[in-house]
């Protein structure tokens, strides 16, 4: 989709939202993204909103929905570049996007994504209680 191209880099899908999205574009983005996840088996999604100056309740809810969908497909998503003005507005609207992981920029976002994907891996392969620890706590060997 032209307004929010999806790039595949290794195991990560990078989506940069380039324009203010119409409601239907946001819905297409969700379909496109989840579809690509399924097709490619990518484990991480980086969603870049750094160019977006207006995020209303519809897009806010879409972000929640997309995050949930990504999780259901066994992948991780980090949203980056939420502008301060947008963050404040969303919070005042009552949308805290609790189910969405975020980072301040793409660099940090990719680092976080790496950690999240690794942690998820450990959760699957490590049996809890094996040495008194569970998978989550000790996957962050490298920070």
């Amino acid at each position: 989709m032209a307004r929010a191209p999806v790039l595949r880099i290794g195991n990560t899908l990078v989506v940069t939202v380039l324009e203010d999205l119409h409601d239907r574009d946001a819905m297409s983005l969700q379909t496109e993204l989840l579809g690509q996840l399924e097709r490619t088996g990518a484990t991480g999604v980086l969603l870049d909103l750094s160019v977006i100056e207006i995020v209303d309740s519809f897009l806010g809810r879409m972000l929640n929905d997309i995050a949930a969908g990504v999780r259901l497909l066994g992948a991780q998503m980090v949203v980056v570049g939420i502008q301060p003005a947008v963050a404040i507005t969303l919070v005042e609207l009552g949308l805290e996007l609790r189910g969405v992981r975020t980072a301040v920029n793409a660099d940090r976002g990719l680092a976080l994504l790496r950690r999240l994907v690794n942690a998820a891996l450990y959760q699957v392969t490590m049996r809890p209680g094996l040495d008194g620890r569970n998978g989550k706590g000790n996957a962050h060997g490298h920070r």
Partner: protein
Amino acid sequence: MPILGEDDIVQSRQHAREAARQLGFGAVDQSRIATAVSELARNIVRYATDGRGQITIRQLTSTDGRERTGIEIVVSDEGPGIPDIDQALSDGFTSGGGMGMGLPGTRRLMDEMTIESAVGSGTTITIRKWRR
């Protein structure tokens, strides 16, 4: 500015943001104003008859001694009207839950909001924000 369809939601919020910017509102207020207009424009597309309505943006100058600039946006439609305005304004009908018209949220973003509505005769919502 007429609202004729979904595409006009983006256009009206962009217009509102630009108008706010020209009136000297800061980035955060521009975002608040644009988002409030987006919510109201979407209500028109979703609930008004044929999804049609009207948005008017104008500058305000206060007359109470202090010289303040503000923005006023009037969003109106000839739709079915809001049967219970109080209920629509109560927090149970926030946009966060995915239902309702997001009026409480819009109210929080602006300084003033007035609703005129009656079943069968349409709705007019006026929102205002003053520059600090």
